[in-house]
């Protein structure tokens, strides 16, 4: 049986790339800006892996385009990530997969929750 902390990690491992693509869908962003957007939606990565290697993989796979520009808050130039055409397709497909999986798991866990009176 996976411990609850370990399960959260496993679940995040499968969907954090999708979450990053989703927050990039709101507009181009640099690394820290993305963690702020995730946190604003209640998703903290404390105790989990870093987003930087994930961003690197998304870039390598051609799912994001990057450009360097001056920071919006006047800081040093930052590397901005934005969805590529391929990234948008991957996001759409990923959301569909997530919904299907979530609904199926909900159906199973909902039944179990009724049985154990949770």
């Amino acid at each position, binding site marked *: 049986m996976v411990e609850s902390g370990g399960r959260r990690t496993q679940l995040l491992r499968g969907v954090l790339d999708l979450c990053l693509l989703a927050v990039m869908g709101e507009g181009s962003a640099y690394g*820290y800006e993305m963690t702020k957007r995730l946190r604003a939606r209640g998703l903290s990565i404390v105790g989990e892996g870093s987003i930087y290697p*994930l961003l690197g993989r998304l870039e390598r796979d051609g799912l994001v385009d990057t450009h360097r520009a001056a920071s919006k808050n006047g800081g040093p130039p930052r590397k901005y990530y934005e969805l590529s055409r391929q990234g948008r397709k991957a996001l759409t497909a990923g959301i569909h997969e997530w919904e299907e999986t979530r609904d199926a798991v909900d159906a199973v866990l909902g039944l179990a929750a009724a049985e154990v009176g949770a």
Partner: protein
Amino acid sequence: MSEFVEACRKEWSRLGVSENLSNEMAADLEADLAEARADGVSPEEVLGNGIFDPTAFAASWAVARGIVSATPRVSPATPRRTWALAAAALASAAAAMVGLLILVVRPMGSVSVAAAAFRRPLIRPIPGIFMTPQRIFSVHSDHGLDLLGGLLFMAAALIGLGVTFWLWRSWSTRRRRSGLDDDIGMPSYL
């Protein structure tokens, strides 16, 4: 530059990441950490578990970007180490065999075993130069010295094997630490 970013730079340099890319990643990291600090946000919020292991974090990032290969680079020292370990293990085993022979075969040999085994001379003796095994055994007849010599050989063998094992463990652990996971949904340290 923060200690964390400096540790990352060192790892990128060790992995052979070009200076341009290393500077770029270090600058992004430094700027993000500085902004988080100004916002009162902990570095762990920005880097997750990566904050506790800059080496693994830096390696994961470089591999994920495709800058370096996931296959750990085999340093030129590795084959030499393997040969050195093999030689040390063989030497230790040989010392153990000699010690064992002195402790076990020698006392028996003086009575019957050696005599039975070497009833005929291995080499036809040339007077004054070669000796038959029987002659060798009869020359070295001090049992106390044999015992001491045997024990010394066995002790040297045990120490040799212990040191060899310790070096092997130490080197193989270091190699595993630098091994990287190419299939990085999340960094390999997660």
